[in-house]
């Protein structure tokens, strides 16, 4: 709401200055906003996934990932299975997208997929599914479009106010209005500079709040806050930047994709709360319910208002699952996970994999036309 008001105010001043009528400016602001919203609403998810060069996977490509997503779909009561994408990037991150819960997608980088064990993966996926379930994707898309529009209008507006000659026409048209004219000019100028900054701050505040809520929901769905906490620890320790991220999509990621080289993700707090703090809250939880998260939040943050909407706070607490019968059973270690993930990525790029008797794996590119191929390791020949 705050950002919508800002946008309308900017339109108002622009209109007042250029067209002698505030209405014209408001109409322009509105039209720009509606067009941007529509594009974002209908194309946002496919745009984002194309930009990230994400590859869609099915059940057979990566059974463990598919199963974990399905588990979280069941736990959250989501009606439709979201699409699953893998981004071929060594950086550690994951995001959710899609305008409504019935056409949602979750994406995870190959780097993160091989770094996390099953419980941690479950925590991360639960966090992303919460974004879908809480409709954060739509909310943040609308907010970012609003923010973009404000920045856009303010940028053009301030250029015109400083360099444009339109002002002279106005001041000569009425002799007595010169003083008022100047006041409007100054107020408008100050506003043009302040509006984008304020909008940005509001945007970040909303984004951070939704992150806390998604963490709380993830703990509730998995009944196991430690899974997400330990995943966040791994995420926080890495310094790799995601190549394909951009500013508009940043709030959808599990951790902020923009962090400078040599700077740890936990030091940066903008669209996301500091990772160290999120871990502390999760580990301070006595149960797995929203109420427990709220209490843990207040324990870490002395004073201030909570992050969970009061309506969702129930009196009862939910116990944390400590008995994990199947958690560690036959789970692959990090090296096996790395092999498994790279196998999936090769296959998704249409490479044919042949395993030689000597143990070497031959990756046959899709353009390879010869009928047989020789193993470079032991010299055996294979049919392609």
């Amino acid at each position, binding site marked *: 709401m705050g950002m919508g008001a800002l946008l309308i105010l900017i339109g108002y001043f622009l209109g007042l200055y250029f067209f002698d009528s505030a209405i014209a400016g408001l109409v322009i602001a509105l039209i720009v906003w509606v067009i941007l919203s529509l594009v974002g609403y209908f194309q946002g998810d496919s745009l984002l996934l194309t930009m990230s060069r994400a590859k869609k996977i099915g059940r057979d490509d990566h*059974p463990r990932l598919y199963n974990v997503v399905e588990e979280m779909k069941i736990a959250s009561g989501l009606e439709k299975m979201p699409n699953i994408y893998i981004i071929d990037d060594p950086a550690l991150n994951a995001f959710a997208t899609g305008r409504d819960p019935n056409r949602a997608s979750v994406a995870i980088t190959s780097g993160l997929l091989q770094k996390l064990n099953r419980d941690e993966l479950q925590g991360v996926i639960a966090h992303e599914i919460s974004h879908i379930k809480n409709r954060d994707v739509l909310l943040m898309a609308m907010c970012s479009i609003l923010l973009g529009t404000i920045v856009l209008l303010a940028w053009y507006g301030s250029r015109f106010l400083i360099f444009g000659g339109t002002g002279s026409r106005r001041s000569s048209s009425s002799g007595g209005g010169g003083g008022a004219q100047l006041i409007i000019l100054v107020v408008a100028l100050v506003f043009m500079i302040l509006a984008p900054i304020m909008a940005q701050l509001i945007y970040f505040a909303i984004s951070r709040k939704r992150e806390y809520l998604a963490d709380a929901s993830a703990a509730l769905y998995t009944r196991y806050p430690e899974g997400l906490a330990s995943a966040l620890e791994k995420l926080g320790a890495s310094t790799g930047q995601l190549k394909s991220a951009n500013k508009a999509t940043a709030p959808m990621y599990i951790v902020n994709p923009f962090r400078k080289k040599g700077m740890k993700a936990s030091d940066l707090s903008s669209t996301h709360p500091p990772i160290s703090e999120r871990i502390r809250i999760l580990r301070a939880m006595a149960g797995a319910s929203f109420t427990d998260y709220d209490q843990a939040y207040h324990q870490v943050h002395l004073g201030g208002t909570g992050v969970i909407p009061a309506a969702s706070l129930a009196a009862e607490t939910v116990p944390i699952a400590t008995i994990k*019968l199947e958690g560690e*059973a036959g789970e692959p*270690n990090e090296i096996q996970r790395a092999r498994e993930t790279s196998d999936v990525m090769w296959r998704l790029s249409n490479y044919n994999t042949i395993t030689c008797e000597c143990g070497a794996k031959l990756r046959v590119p899709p353009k390879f036309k010869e009928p047989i191929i020789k193993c470079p390791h032991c010299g055996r020949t294979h049919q392609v």
Partner: protein
Amino acid sequence: MLAVYIIIGVVVVLLIIFLTIYNGLVRRRNQVKNSWAQIDVQLKRRHDLIPNLMETVKGYMKHERETMESVTKARNLAQQLTSAGAGERAKAEGELSSALSRLLAVVENYPDLKANQNFLALQEELASTENKISFSRQYYNDSVLRYNNQTQMFPSNIVASMTGFKASEFFEVTVAAEREAPKVSFTQ
């Protein structure tokens, strides 16, 4: 005349409130039904996976006849009880869970089996189905709690008793069986 209008107005408002509450109850009851169906799907999936598992394991496990038989027996019993009441059924499924975890615990003694790709894939499926059963049960119980609250709290309890909405049963009898089961760990 005015009194008539007031009465009509009050009746209309009451009717709207009644309908809203009624629709809310129907929605919650359907949610409970759907989440029950989800548990069913997962339990059936587990029953379907077990013969495959037995087939894979058979060639490797020479000395575990008893453990294997108990799994097959528990599975057959659970399958017979699919149309029984929630309590009886939950007990049978709980027994199957513990028989399965006993079987998976002795896999540790068979390194060849642990390296078998087929077995590993099956194990992932089983572990995940096990998770899905517990998550769908968790969601079912949450739905039942929300629905029961609505049938018991004022003012929706009036609508519920007038139109015959009854409180649902929770699904949690298996908890005791799960507590007894040993913790399985295969990581070195």
